[in-house]
């Protein structure tokens, strides 16, 4: 049970966004192909599909490797992840010539604090629970 702690940390990290991806993909697919949403999401879907889960896994691995022994709060560390993901998502969208809807820029002042709070709570309770279950907490 005490072998490969970093592998278990990575798996615990990717579990939440990977499971949640099913709901995201379903919502995007229905919006795009049933309600004809005029936003070509498929051009940037690689970010939530590939980059975000791996970022969660690596973030949890970094926490277990370097910060857990110093009793740094997991919620605060996980809550900081949007500060990397938001610019990363914006960069991916720009690199792929995805036209970001103007409303996205208007909701940033509200959306960023909400994202920080949601990430803080999800990491503190859900990822923390998985870390405990896998014996790395």
């Amino acid at each position, binding site marked *: 049970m005490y072998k490969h702690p970093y592998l278990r940390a990575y798996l615990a990290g990717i579990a939440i966004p990977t499971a949640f991806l099913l709901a995201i993909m379903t919502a995007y697919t229905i919006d795009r192909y049933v309600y004809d949403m005029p936003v070509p999401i498929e051009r940037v879907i690689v*970010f939530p599909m590939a980059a975000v889960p791996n970022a969660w896994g690596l973030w949890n691995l970094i926490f277990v490797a370097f910060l857990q022994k110093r009793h740094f709060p997991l919620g605060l560390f996980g809550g900081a992840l949007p500060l990397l*993901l938001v610019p990363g998502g914006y960069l991916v969208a720009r690199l792929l010539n995805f036209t970001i809807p103007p409303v*996205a820029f208007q909701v940033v002042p509200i959306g960023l604090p*909400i994202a920080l*709070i949601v990430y803080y709570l999800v990491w503190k309770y859900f990822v923390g629970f998985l870390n405990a279950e896998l014996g790395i907490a």
Partner: protein
Amino acid sequence: MSDREMEEMKKLAKEALPPMRDAELARDLWPAMLERLSTQRRGMPWWDWVLLAGASAGIWFAPGVIPALLYHL
């Protein structure tokens, strides 16, 4: 495998796994288990409830953030 080899194997297995001695517990573990279970039931602190309520209210008043949140989660 012959009977002689089987007996030899049994003998080797018994030598490798000696019978347990002093198998009784030195102390009762149940009180410690109860204490641990009660510790785990502390639940969310009040400030996390405040944050959850704030985030929920923000999403309620500005539903335009939902696609952005889904994109980054």
